[in-house]
């Protein structure tokens, strides 16, 4: 008896597409975290008076920063969609004797998301 | 030397139930479960339809007894049947308490379904994976007991008898190739059936009847081996079972013209499938298995069956049940038919043909599961108590594992408490001999030309042709001769693999060695039973002959041709009568 221990495959996430997509999903969280940090800095600058805030806005108004934000948006969307799509697995909702079908749970989270987005858009735009 | 109070060979339903029974009785008793596969791989896992036990108010013990006895063509021992029927509900409830996910009625009570040969719905079920749930519930429950010690993937090779008592076994640790004696004050054999004696079977590859050979060689007679059950609905090619529950739920069998041919074979008149009384119990499709399988052969001779790539078939039609019921009650049937027959039974009928399914006979035990050797017990499909007689009713077997598994556990525990420890030095010498035998004859076998699978296939072919659904003297004799020849040729088998780690060529050879022994006993029992009863149908002796053969066949090991004699069937309340279905 001399069992053979196979070394775990090197960089397993390159071996199959599902693993690769998973790693991408994990990586997007870095971008989300980065954006959150940035948002905090942004709000902080708002508290530092008009001048700091104007500098901040000017800094953001460059092609480079706009591209960066587009990239972050794409990742944020990927992150959101992939996680939202997994919610029915995590949340099994029973109403009385009936299991709420997966598409209703999905509908609810997407509905909620759109709802909140509308409220925020309304707050910003008006 | 490894030592335990009780040793159980087999981790299927029967073995695990016995182990738990001992665990419950006394946590001080050390129990070894020796199994050639991990317990949850045991073939109990494949049982689909359900387990019978009287639970509903409209049912009675009397009914269940009567169905079982007439189903077995008056061969079952009636005291054993009564005990079995009485204990059945307790055992099934016990399993419920351990967590078995029985299917339920809307009020939360356990649901029951109709089964072949039963006059009323009394088969408990867990969807159509009853055996799977039963086995996993037992296995997982067994993990709770610290005194149950498992020897997973150890292959028992010999029963050790010393001083007239059974004192343990020798077993081969497959992983290392080492043969060791394991001493015990009592031993229970729970090794399952021997379906693999035949080429076309619902039984998994592990069902090679090892325990039968072990007991036989140790000097325990094998009882009623000629009664082998053919199930009427196996998938052609693979032999995968389509459970009787498909017919219990209302499925019908039709020939090439869509005609319910069973009505031509004294199984009653069909009711329309839309009739609220369909399916009628103990009639037509819900007749007993032996009669249905025989009807297939007769219909085939009449030209009514449908040719296919793996021989002729008939159609099992469940389309009228509708997708919803099929998915709810028999989803596994749909899965198996779709996967292995390439047809979706919601839209097409399933091609089926009779397939070897169950070993009614087995190791001779008394009603307490004890064999003639003190300290040696047997339970489950490998044993013959006997409650199944000449034909087992579907769903009686899973219950039998529980009822008699438990009785065996209790008997073995009791025996272990009242008997002295093993004679170690004598066992050591037996251990040496067995180590030598396995080493010289298998692991280090030199020369040899016979191919193992070739021999096995020849044996299976002759079993099928000589001792199949219908038999006659000439055919059985041919098989007997063939088996004698194969046994001789076995001495000259070729084993290419001489390594010791997980050598499955050796285990397969050991299995074949035992199978040849059992096959020979079976064929000689069949040769000597000159009547037709239940699953043993002789075309040269067509009637049942109670005067001469209302007796159990007993095959005794001689080293050569087995010696056959007889033992009376125990009749208590139900005198032999005609077996009637559908009229």
């Amino acid at each position, binding site marked *: *008896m*001399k*069992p*053979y*221990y*196979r070394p*775990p*495959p090197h960089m*397993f*996430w390159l*071996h*199959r597409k*599902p*693993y690769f997509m*998973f790693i991408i999903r994990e990586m997007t969280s870095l971008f989300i975290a980065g954006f959150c940090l940035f948002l905090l800095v942004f709000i902080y600058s708002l508290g530092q008076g008009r001048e700091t805030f104007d500098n901040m806005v000017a800094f953001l108004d460059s092609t480079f920063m706009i591209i960066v934000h587009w990239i972050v948006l794409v990742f944020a969307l990927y992150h959101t969609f992939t996680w939202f799509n*997994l919610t029915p*697995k*995590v949340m099994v909702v*029973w109403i009385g004797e009936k299991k709420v079908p997966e598409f209703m749970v999905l509908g609810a989270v997407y509905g909620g998301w759109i709802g909140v987005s509308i409220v925020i858009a309304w707050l910003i735009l008006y | 030397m490894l030592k335990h109070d009780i040793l159980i060979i087999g981790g299927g339903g029967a073995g695990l139930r016995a182990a738990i029974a001992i665990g419950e009785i006394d946590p001080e008793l050390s129990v070894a479960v020796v199994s050639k*596969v*991990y317990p*949850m*791989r045991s*073939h109990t*896992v*494949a049982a689909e339809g359900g387990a019978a036990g009287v639970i509903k108010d409209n049912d009675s013990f009397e009914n269940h007894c009567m169905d079982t006895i007439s189903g077995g063509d008056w061969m079952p021992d009636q005291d054993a049947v009564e005990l079995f029927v009485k204990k059945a509900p307790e055992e099934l*409830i016990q399993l419920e*308490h351990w*967590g078995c*996910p*029985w299917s*339920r009625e*809307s009020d939360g009570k*356990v649901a029951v379904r109709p089964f072949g040969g039963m006059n009323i719905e009394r088969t408990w079920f867990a*969807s159509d*994976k009853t055996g*799977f749930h039963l086995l*996993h519930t037992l296995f*997982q*429950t067994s*993990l*709770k007991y610290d005194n149950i010690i498992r020897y997973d993937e150890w292959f028992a090779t010999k029963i050790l008898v010393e001083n007239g008592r059974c004192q343990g076994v020798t077993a081969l640790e497959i992983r290392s190739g080492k043969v060791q004696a394991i001493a015990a004050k009592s031993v229970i054999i729970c090794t399952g059936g021997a379906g693999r004696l035949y080429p076309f079977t619902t039984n*998994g*590859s*592990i069902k090679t009847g090892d325990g039968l050979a072990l007991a036989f060689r140790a000097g325990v007679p094998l009882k009623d081996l000629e009664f082998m059950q053919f199930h009427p609905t196996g998938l052609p090619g*693979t032999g*995968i079972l389509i459970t009787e529950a498909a017919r219990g739920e209302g499925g019908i069998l039709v020939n090439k013209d869509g005609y319910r041919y069973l009505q031509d074979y004294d199984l009653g008149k069909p009711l329309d499938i839309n009739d609220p009384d369909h399916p009628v119990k103990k009639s037509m499709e819900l007749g007993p298995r032996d009669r249905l399988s025989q009807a297939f052969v007769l219909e085939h001779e009449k030209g009514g069956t449908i040719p296919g790539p793996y021989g002729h078939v008939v159609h099992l039609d469940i389309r009228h049940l509708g997708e919803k019921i099929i998915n709810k009650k028999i989803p596994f049937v749909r899965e*198996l038919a779709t996967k*292995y027959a390439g047809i979706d039974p919601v839209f097409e009928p399933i091609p089926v043909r009779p397939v070897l399914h169950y070993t009614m006979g087995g190791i001779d035990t008394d009603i307490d599961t004890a064999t003639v050797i003190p300290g040696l017990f047997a339970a489950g499909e490998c044993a013959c108590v006997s409650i199944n007689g000449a034909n087992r009713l579907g769903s009686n077997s899973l219950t039998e594992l529980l009822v008699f598994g438990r009785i065996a556990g209790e008997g073995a525990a009791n025996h272990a408490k009242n008997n002295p420890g093993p004679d170690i030095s004598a066992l050591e010498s037996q251990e040496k001999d067995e180590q030598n035998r396995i080493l010289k004859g298998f692991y280090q076998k030199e020369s040899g030309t016979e191919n*193992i*699978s070739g021999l096995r296939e020849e044996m299976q072919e002759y079993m099928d042709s000589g001792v199949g659904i219908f038999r006659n003297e000439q055919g059985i004799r041919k098989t007997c001769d063939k088996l004698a020849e194969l046994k001789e040729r076995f001495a000259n088998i070729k*084993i*290419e693999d001489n*390594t*010791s*780690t*997980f*050598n*499955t*060529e050796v285990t397969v050879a050991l299995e074949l060695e035992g199978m040849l022994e059992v096959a020979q006993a079976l064929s000689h029992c069949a040769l000597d039973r000159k009547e037709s009863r239940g699953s043993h149908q002789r075309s040269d002796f067509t009637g049942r002959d109670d005067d001469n053969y209302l007796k159990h066949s007993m095959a005794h090991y001689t080293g050569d041709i087995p010696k056959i004699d007889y033992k009376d069937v125990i009749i208590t309340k139900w005198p032999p009568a005609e077996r009637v279905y559908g009229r």
Partner: protein
Amino acid sequence: MGKTIELEIFRYIPEIDEQPAYRSYEVEFEDDWVILDAINHIKDKMDGSLSYRWSCRMGVCGSCGMMINGIPKLTCATFLKDYYPKKVKVEPLLGFPVERDLVIVMDDFMTKLENVKPWMIRDKDKEKTIDKGEYLQSPVQLEKFIQFSMCINCLLCYSACPVYVVDNNFIGPAAIALAQRYNLDSRDDGQDQRNEYIGKHEGIWDCTFVGECSKVCPEDVDPAAAIQQAKVTNTQNFVKSILWPFGGKK
């Protein structure tokens, strides 16, 4: 007849081989052959030394899991025709030590299975004797756990799980799903005991929700869902234990 397919099989016999190697076999097959049929054919007719596990050949005993072209499968439920004319690479399940050829060492799983206490644990006052009959359980209550009870312990999910393959300390999908199976059973009161074990770091929190375990599961057990649901329950319990009076105990 007539079609042949090449199987490239992982071979390792510890007493002979220092290192594993692949050996190729050409097998003539029929369209209804599963991979296990081909492997049996090789053992019976071509090379008796090949070792592997199998029994039921109907996808229910859980013995015959192997890596087929890199993906864990039950070989008795995977058809050759779906690969033909490409060759089929057969390896032992990933993430486990290899005993020999296609046989893995599964001791690790057996220990973990036992550790999740996969048996009924009932409060003393709810225990009843056999003569009192069955515990009532409505079809809806049954529905809540039945899916997680369908696990056949084939271990495909472990091989599909990169977390387990990289670090064997992870309790893993099947064992956690079975813990959930009992946790969600209306007849059971053992959640606290089981959660103590699966709530550890190597338990549910090691899972990063790759989700492949559920995809390879031949019984649609969906262990990934079981793990995430366990995370939700454990978090709720944790929060309750801090915020609720008396630790939120009933």
